[in-house]
């Protein structure tokens, strides 16, 4: 079978790759799914979304127990058995990755373990645990994902310097943790380590955390983190790291000048870079952007007609659900359907506590582009449900077309924001107006009511908030 030709060869078994392979097989195409990792699921399942969300769930248990004190419920300080903790995460991953393999089997997708490299536009060279061989294909889909990026200045051959992958392994709980990078991965993992007992310092070079998110959504999170973390240092860069026996010495530079501080561990979370190395792209007409992403069109075709690419390797936002949708499009296009990736909104969620979620147009993008929008906000202090939860720091906002009230964007900060954002995506995709959202009855008492009340304020005053009329 080694020499036989596949209709579709998918390289990378992350959420993008396995989705593409499954749909290609469902559409009647002979499909191979290739990954060098013996476990299927890619970054998302093995060292990304799933383990990080499992850890965050555990962290939330700890902080909720602390919040219980406000109700007169007192728990002792938790004792944490890291072995059980890690096993539990592994069990979750194991269950899900087995599920992917079972689905691949029942769809008759050939799963091949090995590292793939292009020999030419229709042939792959496979190396790895299986005997090296070649595989020819009519179409290939590259879904090789991305890897944590560590700037040269922070590269130390010391296990105490971690990237997201090693931080998720939870080798120990450092007393002093430095998180370099105030993006979502740094804040999520910082939240986990803080809950488990670390004193966390976050350093961010930009003037605020989560730089691409609207400032008003970040503010409630920033305030919560300020209380929990030891320090949040904005406009600050880490010039260098030095490994000493007593710890890692970081040299910071900010407007005040340079300073040093010692930590037990450092998490570098400054970004991710696309995995395009050693793929043999040079043997094809595939081109990459200045940031190293593979060039694709809206049908996920690369500049080589037989080859498609999807997921983190083709660009931002590097999110699992974007990868899966692109995978679906690629499979359908190969099967001859006239599909394109034309999502009007891709949601993003930061699973901190509180969570932040947004989709579509942000207020700041609208402002920067000069688009006339109306922004409707509803503070959770006016939400009955938020009050019962004791979490009134949240905010719901809608970015609306100034004239028609059409929903162009939605943003949330607050507990459960990640579950609430899907309504905004649906509204945007369907071209809904604020009026439509406001007229849809939302269940009481839930946080989802805040979306309805935000929409109400486009043309009047929401029930639970009085907005004085502007003249």
């Amino acid at each position, binding site marked *: 079978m080694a020499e036989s030709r596949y209709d579709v060869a998918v390289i990378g078994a992350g959420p993008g790759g396995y989705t593409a392979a499954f749909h290609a097989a469902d559409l009647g195409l002979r499909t191979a799914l290739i990954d060098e990792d013996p476990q299927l699921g890619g970054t998302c399942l093995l060292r990304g979304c799933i383990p990080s969300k499992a850890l965050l769930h555990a962290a939330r248990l700890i902080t909720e127990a602390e919040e219980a004190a406000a109700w007169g419920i007192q728990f002792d300080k938790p004792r944490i058995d890291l072995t059980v903790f890690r096993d539990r995460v592994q069990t979750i991953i194991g269950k899900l990755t087995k599920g992917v393999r079972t689905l691949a089997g029942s769809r008759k997708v050939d799963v091949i373990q090995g590292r793939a490299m292009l020999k030419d536009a229709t042939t792959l060279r496979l190396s790895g645990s299986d005997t090296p061989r070649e595989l020819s294909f009519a179409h290939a889909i590259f879904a090789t994902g991305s890897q944590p990026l560590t700037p040269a200045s922070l590269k130390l051959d010391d296990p105490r310097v971690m990237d997201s992958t090693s931080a998720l392994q939870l080798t120990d709980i450092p007393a002093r943790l430095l998180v370099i990078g105030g993006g979502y991965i740094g804040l999520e993992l910082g939240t986990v380590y803080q809950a488990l007992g670390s004193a966390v310092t976050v350093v961010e070079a930009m003037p605020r955390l989560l730089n691409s998110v609207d400032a008003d959504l970040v503010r409630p999170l920033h305030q919560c983190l300020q209380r929990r973390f030891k320090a949040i240092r904005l406009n600050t860069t880490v010039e260098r790291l030095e490994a000493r026996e007593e710890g890692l010495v970081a040299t910071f530079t900010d407007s005040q000048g340079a300073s040093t501080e010692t930590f037990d561990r450092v998490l570098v979370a400054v970004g991710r870079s696309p995995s395009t190395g050693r793929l043999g792209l040079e043997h094809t007409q595939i081109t990459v952007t200045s940031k190293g992403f593979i060039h694709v069109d809206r049908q996920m075709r690369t500049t080589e007609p037989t080859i498609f690419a999807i997921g983190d390797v083709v660009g931002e936002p590097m999110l699992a659900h974007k990868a899966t949708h692109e995978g679906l499009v690629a499979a359908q296009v190969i099967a*001859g359907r006239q599909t394109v990736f034309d999502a*009007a909104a891709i949601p993003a969620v930061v699973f901190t506590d509180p969570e932040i979620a947004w989709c579509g147009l942000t207020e700041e993008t609208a402002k920067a582009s000069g688009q006339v929008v109306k922004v409707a906000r509803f503070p959770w202090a006016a939400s009955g449900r938020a009050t019962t939860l004791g979490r009134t720091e949240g905010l719901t906002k809608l970015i609306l077309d100034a004239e028609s009230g059409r929903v162009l964007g939605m943003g949330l900060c607050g507990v459960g924001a990640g579950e609430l954002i899907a309504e905004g995506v649906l509204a945007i*995709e369907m071209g809904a107006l604020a009026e439509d959202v406001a007229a849809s009855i939302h269940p009481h008492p839930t946080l989802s009511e805040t979306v309805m009340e935000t929409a109400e304020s486009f043309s009047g005053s929401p029930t639970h908030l009085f907005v004085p009329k502007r003249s």
Partner: protein
Amino acid sequence: MNVELPFLAEGIEGGDVVQLLVREGEQVREGQSLIELETDKATVPVPAPAAGTVVRLLVRPGDHVTVGQALIDLDGSEDEPQKAKTFPSERSTAAPAPNPDPREKAGHAEVMEHQEHEPTHPMTPLPEPAQPAVEPKPRTAPTSSAGPGIPAPPSVRRLARELGVDLSQVKGSEAGGRITADDVKVFVRERTKRGASPSAGSSTYSTPYGSERRASLPSIRRKIASNMTQAWTTIPHVHQFQDADITDLMALHKRYAPEFKKKGATLTLSSLFLKAIVHALKLYPQLNATLDLTNGEVIYKDYYNIGVAVDTPDGLIVPVVHHVDQKDLLQISLELADLAERTRKRAIKLEELQGATFTLSNMGGIGAGPFLPIINPPQVGILGVGKARMTPVYRDGQFVPRRVLQLCVAYDHRLIDGAIGARFTNELVKVLEDFQGMFLGL
């Protein structure tokens, strides 16, 4: 000038006036909807062909109007000032009549927009036509229409892709400019009408089996498709084959064709078939009838209008030779040639496509046949003929070469029994084999 009901789409011959969207004395801009017309296909707005002042309304709600009929007397002399009035800031003042139907307004974004700006102004402009307007911006590839920029649900975006429609050119009929599936369909219909090629709709792509090309279906094709489906799925067809020895008919044709030529006509087999059909229909009126199942009645027709299928570059069109029974062969020949010619040029009038009681489909010209024709309802019968072939026929103890035509009559078995259908077919054959006999009343 009189604004006439324009040709709206294939198959739309006219409709009922649902409402008048303008008043006498009102100034209208080009493209503004004048009346709303309900056709058997859809409710469509009829746009003003030019800017001007409505001098007189020539129709009232409820009237049935047909293509070409005058609707409104429009004075188009004030073209320039009218144009100026279409600027948004002045538009409210240009439209003196508030929309009589408040429900209408919710459907039109344009209206809402101006109400927002001038909430105290008592007048609201008329709604934009629910029909898509071509934006002045250049046509962009469909690849540029992502993001929340265009309010169309994913299902509509898919439809647009499949029909090769660039959504940035489609005007949404719903609140907020939301584009519906219907908006896209109307856009396509309009585009077909304008004869524009759906450049975006014809796209080539590769599949594991080779390359394929998708092109959007012209509206005439869609119309044919739905008619055929209806005919084939609702009518229980019987196909009756029979051989006709037309050697003598051909001899007759050969003998008289030059005479016809002198009179400027071409005697074709089709004209002879028409005569034979009418002769047989007179004997078997069930085949010149329509089935009215709703009222449980048969409608027998005392006129004999025969549709003749014509192959045109745009698809099959069936013009009708009216009152074949009252015309002689010369008249029929002249008329048939003229109809076919104008049909191919699409210069045929609507009434010339209507009123058939039976159809003839002749594939002899293509050298094909025999074949099973499909009845064109509300008719109940059709004759399909192919090319006659020289065939050895056993006659008087020997084989003789004869020109034999295999013909096939299809009839609606709900109305016509096999025996009648067979006798009708036999009669046709009899006439074709002994044409002079028909004139002798045999």
